[in-house]
C-alpha cells in the first residue's frame, strides 16, 4: 500500500514536470509545476520527513508560485507571444545519449545490492530543529545574510528609473 502510493505519486511528479516541457502558456506551466511540487511534498511525507512536506507546501507551492503567477499576471502574456516548443536541429542524438545515460544509471542502481529494508523512520521537527540550531547554526546565519542581500538587490533593481 505504502509503495503503491509512493510510485503513483512519483509518476505524477515526473509527468507534471514533463508537461512543463510541452505546454504553451506560462500559466499552464505554473499549474503543472504546482502539481509537481505538491506531489513531491507527498513524497517527502512518505519518506518520513513531515516537517519538510509542510515547508514544501508552504514555501514552494505557496509563496514562490504566487510570485510566479504574479509576474505572469503583470506581464500579461498572450499565447501568440510564446511559440510552442521548437526543437533545435540535431536534438535527437543528444536526447538519445541522455536517455541512454539515465538507463545506465537505472541499471547501476538496480544491480547494486539493496540494503536492509525496514520500516519508515520518521525524523520529526524536533530532531531537525536540534540539528539546524545546533551544529548548523552558521548555515542559518549565512541564510539570513543571503536573504538580506536578496532584499537589497530587489529594492535596488526595482527602483524607478531616472529619466
Amino acid at each position, binding site marked *: 500500500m505504502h509503495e503503491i502510493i509512493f510510485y503513483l505519486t512519483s509518476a505524477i511528479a515526473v509527468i507534471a514536470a514533463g508537461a*512543463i516541457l510541452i505546454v504553451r502558456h506560462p500559466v499552464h506551466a505554473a499549474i503543472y509545476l504546482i502539481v509537481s511540487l505538491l506531489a513531491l511534498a507527498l513524497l517527502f511525507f512518505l519518506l518520513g*520527513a513531515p516537517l519538510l512536506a509542510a515547508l*514544501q507546501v508552504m514555501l514552494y507551492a505557496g509563496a514562490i508560485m504566487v510570485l510566479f503567477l504574479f509576474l505572469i499576471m503583470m506581464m500579461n502574456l498572450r499565447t501568440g507571444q510564446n511559440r510552442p516548443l521548437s526543437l533545435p536541429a540535431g536534438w535527437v542524438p543528444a536526447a538519445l545519449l541522455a536517455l541512454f545515460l539515465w538507463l545506465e544509471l537505472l541499471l547501476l542502481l538496480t544491480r547494486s545490492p539493496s540494503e536492509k*529494508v525496514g520500516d519508515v523512520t520518521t525524523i520529526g521537527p524536533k*530532531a531537525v530543529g*536540534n540539528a539546524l540550531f545546533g551544529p548548523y547554526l552558521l*548555515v542559518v546565519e549565512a541564510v539570513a545574510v543571503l536573504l538580506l542581500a536578496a532584499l537589497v538587490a530587489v529594492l535596488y533593481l526595482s527602483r524607478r528609473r531616472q529619466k
Partner: protein
Amino acid sequence: MIPLNHSLAIAALLFVLGLAVVLLRRELLFILMGLEVMFNGVALTAIAAGQHWGNADGQVLTIMLMAVTAAEIVVALILIWLAFDRYKAVRVEALTRLRDDNKEGVP
C-alpha cells in the same frame, strides 16, 4: 519502506527533466521553472539519503536549499520583469545587447 535506489532514480529523472526544460525552452519564465524542477530533484536526493541513514542532515540541507531558492527566485523574477519592461523580451533570443554587431548602438 522504499529503497534508496528508487528515490535516487526518480530524483535523477526530475533533474534531467528540469535540465531539458532549461535547455529546450526559450522563454525566460520556462527556464526559471526548469531550474525549480532541478532544485526539487536535488531536494528529493537529500531527503531520501537523509532518511536512509536516519539523521536530520538531509532535511537541514533541504531547508537551506529552499531559502536559497527563494532568494534566487526573487532576484531572477525581477530581472525577467526588467528584461520585459525595457527590451520587451520574453524569449532569450531577444536579449542580444552584449553582441558586438549591435546596430542600435549603445543602449
